[in-house]
């Protein structure tokens, strides 16, 4: 979607176990939910 809108230089960082040991861990594991950092640039 980012590329469709026009963003370039798109990067995704490594996954982070955001919900580990939290109340939502079970549901997060069920759907393999993790946190990620994203970077993109609007062209000049």
């Amino acid at each position, binding site marked *: 979607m980012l590329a469709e809108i*026009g963003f370039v230089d798109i990067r995704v960082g490594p996954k982070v176990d955001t919900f580990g040991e939290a*109340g939502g861990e079970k549901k997060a594991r069920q759907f*393999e939910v993790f946190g990620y*950092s994203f970077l993109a640039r*609007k062209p000049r």
Partner: protein
Amino acid sequence: MKAETPVDPRALREEVKSKYRDVATNPRGEYHFHTGRPLARRLGYEQGVVDAMPERAVESFAGVANPFSLRRLEAGERVIDVGSGAGFDCFIAAHQVGPQGRVLGVDMLQEMLERSRAAAAEMGLANVAFREGLIEEMPVEDGWADAVISNGVINLCADKRRAFQEIWRVLRPGGWLQFADIANGKPVPESALRNIDLWTA
């Protein structure tokens, strides 16, 4: 053309408001996600910067990853935090852009805005401001920002394309979008996608 969304955007917004109003007013409550300093440690934020913040600035933090991990903001940049919550990422941003930079947090919840403004005042930050608004209609002029940050917010928007298009509008040409969010490795059933209660569960 109106975008097709799995849930009613207004109903989802009210559900999100209810959940995060609790986080603002009761940061030490029981939630399905981590909050505060333990979460900041888990997500790899600069420990020294977080340690220097007053409790009010950190305790309601409820992000999902670190939007500064792929790019550090530059001194003097103008930054918008979309869905700024209690202001934690705005305060990290203010540290990175320095006194010549400007940070603007946009959030739809009065309780979060009050908390973030109080924390900014306690920290004596003159380069941070907060405005009430929605990600889909930000109260910011076209091309104002050198960078837009966000943390755990876009996944809570029913119409993500509209959210990204609005971010595009407020970014200057050459500006950066650096955000953190959750993504699932296994497909979520259609029935769950249409269940508004599960969006914030």
